[in-house]
């Protein structure tokens, strides 16, 4: 699979998914442009993680199509999906580090499994990526000995070690103190600039959304209800988006 040149790297059309008859996505249409940083905002439990898992083929939709480089991934074999995922990096909400492996081994794992690089070269690249996320002297530590913010940064180093074309971030700032949240936001911007990657961030943290987004889309009741630049979002007339952005209890969204 070659890296494409089309305008959109990922397109979703009419994606629907229900779990045990409970609809989570009800028709998501979303185009992700090459090189942009798209932030998808939405309330907790509205299906943001489920959306990301559809984009990567971890979950198959009940209906609709998902294109990566203009190929419908819902028709992919497992082998083809694995090939596709070599172009993806993902930062999971809790970091999802393999806790039986050291930090260094975590970041090195994709290189060890998918390349024929020698130990020296692997070590060099891993340290390079760890430095990129601001970590030194952690190579031999285990994930259990690290703080939430450090785990996320290691997760980020692992996500970008294979030079992906697109990186997905699942609530990168949730559960972090404001200073660490700002560090992560800065990293998302830096990585995008330095590695020329497309980024998709899902979050409910508006501060983070404004800080990193080229474009913001809102997921509400299983659909994308609005998408626009941060400036457009700030001045939106859409009542749902407005209520979410302002963080108000009054409005069309009912607190559950």
């Amino acid at each position, binding site marked *: 699979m070659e890296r494409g040149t089309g305008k959109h790297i990922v397109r979703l059309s009419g994606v629907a998914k229900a779990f045990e008859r409970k609809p989570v996505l009800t028709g998501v249409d979303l185009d992700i442009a090459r090189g942009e940083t798209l932030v998808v905002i939405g309330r907790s439990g509205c299906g943001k993680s489920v959306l990301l898992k559809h984009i990567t083929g971890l979950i198959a939709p009940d209906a609709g199509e998902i294109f990566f480089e203009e190929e419908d991934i819902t028709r992919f074999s497992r082998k083809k999906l*694995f090939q596709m*995922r070599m172009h993806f990096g993902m930062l999971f909400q*809790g970091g999802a580090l393999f*806790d039986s492996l050291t930090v260094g081994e975590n970041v090195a*794992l*994709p290189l060890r*499994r998918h390349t024929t690089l020698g130990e020296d070269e692997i070590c060099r690249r891993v340290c390079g990526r760890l430095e990129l996320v601001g970590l030194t002297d952690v190579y031999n530590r285990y994930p259990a000995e690290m703080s939430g913010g450090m785990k996320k940064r290691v997760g980020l180093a692992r996500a970008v070690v294979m030079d992906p074309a697109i990186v997905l971030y699942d609530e990168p700032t949730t559960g972090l103190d404001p200073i660490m949240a700002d560090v992560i936001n800065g990293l998302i911007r830096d990585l995008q600039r330095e590695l020329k990657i497309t980024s998709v961030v899902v979050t409910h943290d508006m501060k983070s959304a404004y800080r990193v987004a080229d474009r913001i889309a809102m997921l509400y009741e299983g659909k994308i209800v609005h998408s626009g630049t941060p400036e457009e979002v700030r001045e939106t007339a859409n009542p749902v988006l407005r209520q979410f952005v302002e963080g108000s209890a009054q409005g069309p969204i009912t607190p559950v």
Partner: protein
Amino acid sequence: MAPFTLLGRFLLELVQEIGGLGILIWRTTQLLPRTFANARAVFQQMDRIGIGSIPLVCVTSLFVGAVTAIQAAYQFHGYVPYKFIGTVVGKSVTLELGPVLTALVVGGRVSASIAAEIGTMKVTEQVDALEMIAIDPVEYLVLPRVVAATIMLPALTIFSDFLAIFGAAVVANISIGVSFHTFETGLKLLFRQQDLVGGLMKTFAFGYIIALMGCYHGFETRGGAEGVGVATMKAVVASCLLILISNYLLASLIFRIIFAPSS
């Protein structure tokens, strides 16, 4: 709820369960040629599953052998000469007690640990993370465990057979007063190699069942810590039940067909 709805739901779940298990078995089998590429992980699991279980198997086997000797003496008393204690110990240990009890205690230990480990990886998204770095979780997690358990169970059982017989010999000597020489004569009297081989053949299946149940229930884990607890329990229950059921089926196959007594 209407009884038919309940029955329908139960059947549906059963079909889903068997389907899921079938897919896991199929994918593991397809990946068997990749065993050598994953040799390091296989050895690591052989160490964890096999070497790690030795203390447990030691204690179990010694005491099972000891109690078999005591019970044999109790039942023989007044009817059968004690020189046959060795005979009955040898037969029951190699045919049933060694293989089945080893499988049950190792099964409890190993399937629980596999289910808890994979279940935790599942709920903390580590399984998804493997998929995302294009590593097949079945190859990375299931294959080494299944291969290692299938190899190690027979090895542990041989060890267990010897220890149980040793334990019986010691107890026969000390508390029943049967000399080692008499015990040994009894042991050799009706011993046939096919007893040992037939008993060991079953244990390949037991090892496979133990690892498969741990992995399957690990992957099926839902929710958080509670889900891991449920998965662990299901894995232990399922592997123990399947060991006992397959033991009957395999004994029928091996001792009534393959090694059928010639009359």
